[in-house]
């Protein structure tokens, strides 16, 4: 019986593994932990105001029929400062934005808002990150698109850059 093809088997296995490893090296890397909550309803929560002069945020507040953005931020987070102009642009374009401030102090939030402006309708304080965990959010900043019925439609991880603004506005428009 001719078994000469068997001689090629090790080479084939090594070539397959080699090809796989090269693919692993060149394939674009995605280190982000995406929320598995996209497509599901917002979890139940009711957060106190993050600072004086703003209103707190509950999941019921986002079920009023208007699609909106939910921005997860913190005054101590540097990319959150970088995305402030984009949030402003989104607000000017008609987007309603609610926010959750993560592990923040009221005076720090107030200082952040006075320096970078306040594009938010409501800001809830999540001082122990408990709601962040329930949202499947892995850090700050993150921005969710929330449907008018309180369903999580999309999760944007990281700061909003200029090129993301039209995309987020489009997501809001198609949610109407």
């Amino acid at each position, binding site marked *: 019986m001719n078994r000469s093809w068997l001689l090629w088997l090790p080479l084939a296995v090594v070539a397959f593994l080699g090809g796989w490893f090269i693919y692993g090296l060149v394939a674009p890397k995605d*280190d982000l*932990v*995406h*929320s*598995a*909550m996209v497509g599901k309803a917002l979890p139940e929560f009711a957060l106190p105001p993050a600072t004086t002069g703003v209103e707190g945020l509950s999941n019921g507040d986002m079920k009023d029929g208007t699609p909106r953005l939910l921005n997860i931020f*913190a005054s*101590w*987070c*540097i990319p959150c400062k970088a995305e402030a102009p984009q949030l402003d642009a989104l607000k000017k374009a008609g987007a309603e934005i609610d926010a959750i401030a*993560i*592990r*923040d*102090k009221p005076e*720090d939030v107030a200082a952040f808002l006075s320096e970078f402006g306040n594009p938010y309708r409501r800001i809830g304080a999540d*001082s*122990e*990150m*408990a709601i*962040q*965990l*329930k*949202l*499947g959010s*892995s*850090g700050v900043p993150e921005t969710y698109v929330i449907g008018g019925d309180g369903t999580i439609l999309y999760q944007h991880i990281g700061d909003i850059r200029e090129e993301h603004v039209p995309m987020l506005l489009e997501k809001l428009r198609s949610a109407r």
Partner: protein
Amino acid sequence: MRTAFMSLLVFIATPVFAQGTGATPALANRQLPNPAQEASATKLMHSLRCIQCQGQSIADSDAQMAGTMRAEVRQQIASGQEPEAIRQWMVDRYGEWVSFEPEMKGVGLLLWAMPLLILLLALWLARGLFRRRT
């Protein structure tokens, strides 16, 4: 002198200040009063992955997010929740990725079955050695 001082500033790592200022949940670093419950919470915590410092379990990690996840695990254990139900709770929020113990289905099943498959392949390759030569 001034240059020396300025270059010292390099050593002040910004991540230290990037941790934020808020409170850490009480149960992040405090054990449950019931030793049996604490044991099952700890066991589960060793098999859940920290979201922030990827690759460490939440039991090993000092990250804020890991503390929050430990508190959530302890809280749910204390309220009588089963460890596997809590694992599912985490998976429902962060995907299969959050668990260090992949489920025995889909690609995960291949992972579990791989040692057996390799053993079978090795036996098949070596079967000639066991044959009586005549």
